[in-house]
């Protein structure tokens, strides 16, 4: 294939016409665009006019360039350009495809299969026999077949959830004779690979195809200080990145869902990162597996086994049953604290130990028989945790008095001590902060936990190291002794609230939890597994999907423990294995697994899987040519002056489309009252007087405005000759305002400023006699104090409005006497200042006249904060919606509010008519003379 750089051509000879392009340039340049003929009577006036500049008759160079480029694109397009053309495998012998087929392959398996298919197809095209081997299989004889035979089988090859291991076996299974090989590697280093590389290179050339995408692996979760620690490894350790790990498990209803999430952050160059996941024990017990959120491979899934599961705890209480004293029972608090998180066994010690509990709790048990002590000691030796609580019996007995009892961490002093009681000096003691070596380190002892009575440890040399919790004065409160794999812990107070308040506190639960979970190794020891047959219950496939194990045979414990450290194999698939009393998870990635990049010898050429995808560019070139030709059409039209009409049409279509796009949805149309078509709206607004309110976008406020104006309209209808129709909501951005004499504008705390167009409309409205009643609805602090959010919004809105200087409504303003005589203007609130346009300066009331002569000017705005709409508001039946004040005084206030409304609308509609009327007596008097 002929190629220039990364660009190859299928039919390069079609590129020859490119040579002719310069000729075409000259030809095209000679032919100017055709003139347009127009019939135009005004030509008589044009005769004799010369063109300003003698423009050449030639085609402009840029138009030529467009045409030339379009033609070049067509030529190149038909020559079949291919970016990164696939290199065919050279050679003629048989071709062996080697696939790792491991879990690390699973993430980009489709690409690998596609690559393999392409290789098989290429080989088929040149008649080479093909064989494909998957290294995760057990070695078997390699037989070359025709590519056709393989073509259909390649797609069916699946990766396996383990790593390839038996390279030497495969090297032995290779047939003799020369053949070439292509190795589709998963990018991980696998021990023993060199054998196979050498064997393959002996037979012929070897190429390697690898992926450059990072590989992520999730290690099994483990416990540390009551938290789940999740570790993730990656390859390559490149830039800082964070991945999300999800804890999956059934919810109480049994439905699988994400129980917890944690983000694991890799620092720059860090190959392994950890994160802690803190979950309540109830939730933690339900976790069945952890998953890396992005990558679906078996390596990104970690099944959790019984190591995260509920513990078995035996509660032992010796001695006679005390009927009716359940709340005083030392075991009560323990039972309450442990019930949600653990499985509890109650009974005598011997029987309980047979159930192999994880923890045995002895509450105030002093004497154990020899048999019991032996059994308990043996159990502790094997890893059990014996947790003992003190109590009156323990204090009274002489166990561990002179010599240390095997099942006691310390020797005890006789009688114990009592602090802060009725008969003793001193205060009850609180807890000291936990020392760093203590399993409780990090817990915060609450102040209200006090100890009144306790048993005291003898100051033996190793007391300090055995103490894991102490009182303020340093007296040991909890001591611990390690016996074999297990330990004995003594709490020096009772398990009930008799001696201390510790069992009543949340700390008690936390301490128990820390003790209980830190008692057991997370990973099962080889010895635990040995000697049993473990039956797989759930197995993982390479893509991390858990499936039922079905009829897979059980495995020996020894093999399983080996696999847990080394990793799963063909015989031991990753999954959950059930033994006699527990389940063990075998994960692809063990705690120790390290991801290492594959290291190929220098003699092996390595390609990446991603960068070699051939892209056929024919379509792109032809599309580009088409676009250029369209541009050419437009440009030619523009040159000929024919674009104007087309543009106008296009613009109209665009405006229409935009208009439709910004149309409010049906929901909004229902929500805003009166979103009518323009004509109907104009008719509705002009056939009668209509009070209007500004729609704020808040449905509640708008509804209140509507109801308020409805109530006011009713009152106007009843009392005056003004007979308004139903109020209308106005969108100041869109609607024509000229139809409305009066606008009620409630201010929202976080209102928006109107657009410039709306401002222009509003100013026109105010200048041409409209009136706006601004209502901040916040009682007093309106106006220009600007302290309330509403006030600030009002300032913001008013900044663009053409509002004259304002003053508080003077007592002789026309508004006080247009219908009713009023001096205050309450709404839902009383007494707020109402602002109107300031009267001209230096106008004094005439002698004997009650009012100043203020004939001119109707105020364009009235500003207040009394929430008038709420006071006016009625429903459709005329029943008031909002309670005003209290009792009769409140009704009186509502009445005055209505009167203000009536006066206001009168003022709006009659202007300063009333101002003139006051002069009538004076005029009549003069005329009479």
């Amino acid at each position: 294939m002929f190629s220039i750089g990364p660009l190859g051509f299928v039919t390069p000879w079609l590129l020859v016409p490119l040579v002719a392009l310069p000729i075409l340039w000259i030809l095209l340049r000679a032919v100017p665009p055709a003139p347009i003929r127009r019939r135009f009577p005004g030509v008589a006036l044009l005769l004799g006019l010369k063109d300003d500049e003698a423009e050449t008759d030639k085609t402009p160079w840029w138009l030529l360039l467009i045409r030339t480029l379009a033609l070049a694109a067509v030529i190149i397009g038909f020559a079949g350009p291919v970016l990164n053309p696939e290199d065919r495998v050279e050679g003629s012998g048989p071709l062996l495809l080697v696939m790792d087929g491991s879990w690390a392959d699973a993430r980009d398996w489709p690409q690998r299969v596609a690559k393999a298919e392409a290789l098989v197809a290429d080989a088929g095209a040149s008649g080479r026999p093909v064989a494909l081997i998957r290294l995760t299989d057990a070695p078997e004889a390699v037989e070359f077949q025709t590519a056709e035979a393989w073509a259909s089988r390649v797609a069916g090859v699946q990766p396996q959830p383990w790593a390839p291991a038996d390279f030497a076996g495969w090297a032995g299974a290779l047939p003799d004779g020369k053949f070439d090989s292509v190795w589709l590697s998963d990018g991980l280093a696998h021990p023993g690979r060199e054998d196979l590389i050498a064997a393959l290179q002996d037979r012929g050339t070897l190429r390697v195809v690898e992926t450059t995408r990072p590989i992520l692996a999730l290690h099994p979760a483990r416990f540390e200080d009551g938290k789940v620690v999740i570790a993730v490894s990656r390859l390559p350790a490149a830039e800082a990145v964070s991945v999300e790990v999800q804890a999956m498990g059934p919810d109480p209803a049994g439905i699988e869902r994400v129980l917890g999430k944690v983000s694991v952050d890799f620092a720059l160059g860090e190959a392994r990162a950890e994160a802690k996941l803190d979950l309540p024990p109830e939730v933690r017990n339900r976790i069945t597996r952890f998953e890396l959120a992005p990558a679906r491979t078996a390596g990104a899934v970690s099944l959790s086994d019984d190591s995260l599961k509920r513990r078995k705890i035996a509660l032992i209480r010796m001695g006679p049953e005390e009927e009716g004293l359940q709340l005083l029972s030392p075991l009560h608090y323990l039972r309450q604290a442990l019930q949600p998180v653990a499985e509890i066994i109650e009974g005598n010690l011997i029987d309980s130990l047979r159930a192999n509990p994880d923890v045995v709790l002895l509450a105030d048990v002093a004497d154990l028989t020899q048999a019991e002590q032996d059994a308990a000691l043996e159990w502790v030796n094997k890893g059990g945790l014996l947790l003992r609580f003190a109590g009156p019996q323990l204090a009274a007995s002489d166990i561990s008095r002179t010599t240390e009892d095997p099942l006691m961490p310390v020797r005890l002093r006789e009688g114990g001590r009592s602090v802060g009681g009725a008969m003793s000096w001193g205060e009850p003691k609180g807890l000291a902060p936990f020392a760093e070596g203590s399993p409780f380190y990090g817990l915060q002892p609450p102040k209200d936990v006090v100890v009144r009575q306790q048993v005291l440890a003898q100051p033996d040399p190793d007391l300090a190291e055995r103490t894991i919790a102490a009182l303020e004065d340093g007296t040991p409160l909890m001591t611990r002794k390690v016996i074999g794999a297990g330990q004995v812990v003594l709490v020096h107070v009772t398990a009930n609230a008799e001696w201390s308040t510790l069992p009543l506190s949340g700390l008690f639960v936390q301490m128990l939890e820390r003790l209980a979970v830190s008692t057991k190794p997370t990973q099962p020891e080889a010895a635990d597994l040995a000697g049993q047959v473990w039956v797989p219950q759930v197995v993982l496939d390479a893509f991390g999907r858990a499936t039922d194990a079905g009829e897979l045979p059980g495995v020996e414990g020894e093999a399983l423990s080996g696999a847990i450290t080394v990793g799963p194999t063909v015989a031991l698939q990753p999954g959950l294995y059930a033994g006699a009393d527990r389940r063990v998870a075998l994960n692809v990635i063990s705690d120790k697994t390290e991801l290492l990049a594959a290291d190929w010898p220098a003699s092996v050429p390595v390609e990446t899987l991603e960068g070699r995808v051939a892209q056929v560019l024919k379509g792109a070139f032809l599309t580009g040519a088409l676009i250029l030709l369209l541009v050419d059409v437009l440009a030619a039209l523009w040159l000929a002056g024919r674009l104007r009409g087309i543009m106008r049409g296009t613009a109209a279509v665009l405006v229409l489309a935009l208009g439709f796009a910004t149309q409010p949805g049906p929901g909004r149309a229902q929500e805003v009252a009166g979103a009518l078509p323009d004509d109907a709206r104009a008719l509705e607004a002009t056939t009668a007087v209509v009070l209007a309110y500004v729609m704020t976008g808040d449905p509640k406020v708008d509804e209140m405005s509507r109801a308020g104006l409805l109530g006011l309209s009713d009152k106007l209808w009843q009392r005056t000759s003004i007979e308004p129709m139903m109020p209308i909501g106005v969108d100041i951005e869109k609607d024509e305002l000229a139809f409305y004499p009066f606008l009620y504008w409630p201010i929202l705390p976080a209102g928006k400023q109107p657009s410039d167009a709306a401002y222009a409309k509003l100013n026109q409205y105010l200048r041409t006699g409209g009136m706006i009643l601004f209502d901040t609805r916040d009682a007093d602090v309106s106006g220009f104090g600007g302290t309330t959010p509403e006030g600030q919004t009002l300032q913001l809105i008013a900044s663009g409005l053409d509002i004259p200087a304002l003053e508080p409504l003077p007592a002789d303003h026309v508004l006080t006497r247009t219908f009713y005589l009023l001096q205050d203007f309450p709404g839902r609130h009383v007494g707020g200042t109402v602002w109107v346009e300031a009267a001209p300066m230096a106008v004094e009331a005439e002698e004997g006249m009650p009012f100043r002569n203020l004939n001119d000017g109707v105020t364009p705005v009235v500003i207040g904060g009394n929430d008038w709409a709420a006071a006016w508001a009625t429903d459709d039946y005329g029943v008031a919606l909002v309670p005003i004040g209290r009792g009769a005084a409140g009704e009186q206030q509502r009445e005055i509010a209505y009167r203000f409304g009536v006066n206001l609308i009168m003022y709006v509609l009659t202007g300063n008519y009333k101002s003139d009327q006051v002069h009538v007596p004076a005029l009549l008097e003069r005329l009479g003379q």
Partner: protein
Amino acid sequence: MSAAPDLQSTDLRTRAEALGQSLPPLLAEAEMLASTVMLGEHGRRRAGMGDEFWQYRPAHAGDSARMVDWRRSARSDAHYVREREWQAAQSVTIWVDQGRSMGFSGAKTRAPKSDRAKLLALALAVLLLRGGERVGLAGLAHPRAGKAQLLRLAARLAGDTGGEEYAAPETEGMVSHGRGVFLSDFLGDLAGIEAGLARAADRGVKGCLIQVLDPAEEEFPFDGRTIFESMGGGMRHETQQAGDLRTRYLARLAERKDRLAGLARSVGWHFTTHHSGSPAQSALLWAYRALEGGR
């Protein structure tokens, strides 16, 4: 021999049918236009056929006895004569440009200028005939009064447009000291217009010039390489950049209007420009007032 009459008769029939179809709408439209004017601005006294009361005046010597209004006279001591409004019907001659240039329309949605000119002429005729004036078409119909004249005028107007590119005003049939209305785009040779106007002025005819223009002629919304041709194709002008000519074209158009206005003023005529894109009513109103003002 037999083919020619056939052709002729077919042609005649087609034309007759076209006439029959186009005439009533034009007439109806004109009537409608005229009626709006009558109802609105001109709902004032109108001289009837001489039976309109004007005033009572005391009888002079020389008044015949039968001129005395006895009913009025009986209410007082003096004799009164009942005078009726003096009526003298005017002859209005309308010239509508039938040149091919009037067939221009700048947009598909707009009718050609000639349609508007004919509509205006006919509507004016309706108004004037109602007012009892005599109305005629220059060169096509002599001024006559009465309803029947309207149909005649409509029929004449619906006739073919002439073959010439730009027509010059026709003054044939203009009555001395009558009124004249010239409806044209006045884009042709100014000398012809001048001559026509002078002929009319010589006969003492007063009146008005209505220049009917298409909005495209006012705006010159052309661009790019263009060959402009007159409607008949007789004149052509080629330009590389039509957009560059706009200002100069508009200047020439303004100058032409100025000349026409000056010309009209010099002979005591009125001049206006009407655009076929705007409603015809204003132009009709203007024309009616212009004729009335000269009365």
